[in-house]
């Protein structure tokens, strides 16, 4: 039997605001417990929520970046349930009239190629606090710093067909939200959280199977692992003649397995109703258009332009466009005079490694552009250029030119025939047997000699100049 997997994802992202959704408290991560709180986010008697305009703006940007229709009128609703991390006994969310609907996300499926996944809705809501189980022995403590932090919930259509696709969907979504500067999408800090709905059906069926929701997914890799485990569990159940019951499951990253959290019968009745403390959220078309106009170039468009404007391969464009900062750096290096492909090679290589390590690019674009020109002019070898790039002097803006740094480090390339001749002589003396073999007709050893000369010159020798000198001296 061939089975088709059907997956829909619910992603919560924390909106990049300085203050909370309905009060002025800071959203800073990692402050001492219960220091960023006030009567509103503590749910004290008599306190009232007032919406954060910046949160609405960011959620609108996210919605527009995902091709959603932003509703001119949306409604905040109360989602009622009791939990110690929920100060009011309800969460302010949106229900039947969300901020935005009918969007899509295009991504490259590992199985199906380019595909489009529908976005059902995007709505804004407030986060709950956090329970701390390890602070007070034998007791659970409540930290309400996070309570009231603004979130956007992005719900996909059940258009995803494999755990691997789910992972690519998430990677792509994260890229777009980071580009739009909506969220920093850090799973470690909880600013991006994923719940996954998954069901299976016989290949070709048009109706959906019974779905289960998987929670506690703390990385994109674990989303893929959890969904794989759950898909296999469901197929196993059905193939052994059992039924799947609708339920909510928790993934255990340690065991790689899911376990039952609650069945459908135990699910909450949230008793949503419009929040009478908050008038309907009314957005004018002019304001929505203004937000659309303010959106930056998004990853797809950027990738396309990198191919068209710089002649990069699609694969290179993909790597560079994956992060807005990388793409900006690449374009700055080219603008400073580097040849595009050379710039791309540097940006994807040593520069990216440095960026990943430091969190920012250490070398100014103009410096890197100059370095690529020195390589192109054979003044610095590719190998030596890497050492110049790694030197602290290059990252220091107060130093002189890149060429001066290369000279100071003794890394300018030597093309002078006499200087090359002396390194060649040393090599020929050091490897008499190889010289004999070469002269006996084993001419492919020329590469070995070039390599030895480069090594002896510590990369300074111009390899193009070395070869004729070697050939000349070996003939003698």
């Amino acid at each position, binding site marked *: 039997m061939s089975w088709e997997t059907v997956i829909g994802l619910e992603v919560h992202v924390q909106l990049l605001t300085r203050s909370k959704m309905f009060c002025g408290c800071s959203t800073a991560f990692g402050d001492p417990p219960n220091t960023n709180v006030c*009567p509103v986010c*503590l*749910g*004290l*008697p*008599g*306190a*009232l*929520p*007032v*919406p954060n305009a910046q949160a609405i703006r960011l959620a609108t940007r996210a919605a527009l970046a995902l091709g959603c229709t932003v509703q001119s009128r949306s409604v905040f609703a*109360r989602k*009622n349930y*009791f939990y*110690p991390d929920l*100060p*009011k*006994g*309800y969460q302010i969310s949106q229900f039947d009239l969300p901020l935005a609907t009918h969007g899509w996300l295009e991504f490259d499926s590992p199985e199906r190629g380019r595909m489009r996944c529908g976005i059902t809705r995007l709505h804004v809501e407030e986060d709950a606090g956090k329970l701390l189980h390890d602070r007070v022995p034998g007791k659970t403590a*409540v930290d309400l710093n996070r309570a009231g932090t603004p979130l956007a919930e992005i719900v996909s259509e059940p258009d995803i067909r494999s755990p691997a696709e789910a992972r690519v969907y998430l990677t792509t979504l994260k890229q777009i939200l980071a580009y739009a500067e909506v969220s920093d999408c850090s799973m470690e800090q909880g600013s991006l959280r994923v719940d996954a709905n998954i069901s299976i059906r016989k290949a070709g069926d048009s109706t959906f199977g019974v779905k289960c929701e998987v929670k506690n997914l703390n990385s994109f890799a674990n989303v893929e692992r959890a969904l794989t485990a759950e898909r296999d569990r469901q197929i196993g159940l059905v193939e052994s003649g059992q039924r799947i019951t609708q339920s909510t499951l928790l993934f255990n990253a340690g065991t790689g397995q899911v376990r039952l959290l609650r069945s459908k019968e135990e699910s909450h*009745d949230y*008793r*949503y*109703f419009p*929040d*009478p*403390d*908050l*008038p309907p959220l009314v957005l004018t078309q002019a304001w929505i258009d203004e937000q659309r106009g303010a959106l930056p170039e998004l990853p797809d468009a950027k990738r396309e332009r990198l191919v068209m404007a710089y002649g990069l391969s699609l694969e290179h464009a993909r790597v560079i466009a994956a992060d807005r900062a990388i793409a900006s750096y690449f374009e700055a290096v080219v603008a400073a005079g580097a040849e595009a492909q050379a710039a791309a090679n540097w940006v994807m290589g040593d520069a990216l490694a440095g960026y990943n390590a430091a969190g920012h690019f250490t070398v100014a674009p103009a410096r890197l552009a100059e370095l690529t020109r020195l390589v192109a002019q054979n003044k610095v070898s590719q190998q030596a250029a890497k050492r110049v790039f790694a030197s602290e002097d290059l990252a220091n803006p107060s130093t002189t030119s890149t060429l001066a740094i290369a000279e100071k480090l003794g890394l300018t390339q030597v093309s002078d025939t006499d200087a090359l001749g002396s390194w060649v002589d040393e090599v020929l003396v050091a490897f008499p047997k190889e010289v004999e073999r070469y002269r006996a007709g084993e001419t492919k050893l020329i590469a070995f000699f070039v390599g030895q000369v480069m090594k002896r010159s510590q990369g300074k020798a111009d390899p193009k100049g070395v070869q004729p000198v070697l050939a000349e001296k070996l003939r003698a």
Partner: protein
Amino acid sequence: MTAAAVAKDVGARLAQAAGLNATLHWSAECLEAEARRVDGMSTQGALHALPLAVKDNIVTIEEPTTCGSRILEGYVSPFTATAVRRLRAAGAMVACKANLDEFAMGSSTEHSAYGRVNNPLDHERVPGGSSGGSAALVAADVVPAALGSETGGSVRQPASFCGVVGVKPTYGRVSRYGLVAFGSSLDCISVFGKTVNHASRVLAVMSGPDPLDATSVDRPPMKAPAAISSLAGLKVGLPREYFPSDLHPGVRAGLDRTVATLRELGATISEVSLPHSKYAVPTYYIIAPAEAAANLARYDGVRYGVRRVGPEGDISSLYRATRGSGFGAEVRRRILIGTYVLSAGYYDAYYRKAQTVRALIAQDFHQVLGANGVDLLLTPTTPTPAFKAGEKTEDPVQMYLADIFVCAISLAGLPALSLPVGRDRGLPIGAQLIAGAFEEPRLLAVAALLERTLGGTEEVR
């Protein structure tokens, strides 16, 4: 007169009125501190040295705010309600926190966890509710004005029972920030006055938009109206649904007297119809409890207020024990109703339907008070004068029907007031005047002239 002298006098009156059980918290020290603050103000405010009773569901930082509930016993708010902040800045003094039906749920102030309030005109009778403590303190001449709150008539109805003026402003006219929520789409901080003028002055100071309340309306604060001497050109409508044939004869006589006075003053009287008002009480008892069930979920024993731990020792038993013992019977009843009407499968039949009916009720008023309609409506405030304590406590529906003439106005969000128009065998009769949204100045000006002409304490039959 200095604020210190006023405070001393009010302290003596509060002590004397202890038998009413109308206050929950007050102290001579707090009063003296208020007086020192006011006497120290560089300029005299609009309400200089005016002592106010404040219903105990409006938060203040000097005294506890219990909402008449065990669950908030001893709770002191870290912030002051916007309305109180504005009143104090204008020179008013908070004299005491007044007793109320628990979380403002009730029509007799018999549902306070701290005991019932007596009607100062007849201690066997209720003062009305839920703002019964505030009404009683004004009626007993302890304070000239007091803050109450309305969700469905909780100021107008006790004003009628106690023979004082009670004004409910347009929804959104006064900030709700610091009013402990009951039914958020209905709640209005409202005011009692010994006279219309007292109420007008207090309302003028506390009205106006508040950035802390997203439902406060962005309009300049209300101006207290200038006195008028004639009602020539004023059109007053009598909605026939509010004058049933079995209306209490004393109430009818009081209203007849009011209509006659309106005519004498030059007003034109006509009969109008508000056909959907008959659904107001059931509609109100779906919407208000639904909102209340969510608003009262925060009293869970986790962060503040009273905490009880159940025998199982887990979080669910903490919720059950805290809420089960902390809330009184009427509050529990309304939480159950509210939870029920919002439940999956019942939402459309109850909550959604009630919202539809609410819109129809409001539409009736907008039509009657619209461009080609009348300027004001006149109705009885209550179907009977003050009833006896214990008379309706066993029958919640009879208790709810005490608000039959005031509920619809709350659902429509309109301004209205109750004015004493006479007495029947010593018990006050109140007439209700209703205006269009934000028409408080006209409403108050007419009421002040009626008050001057009618007196208000004469026997009506």
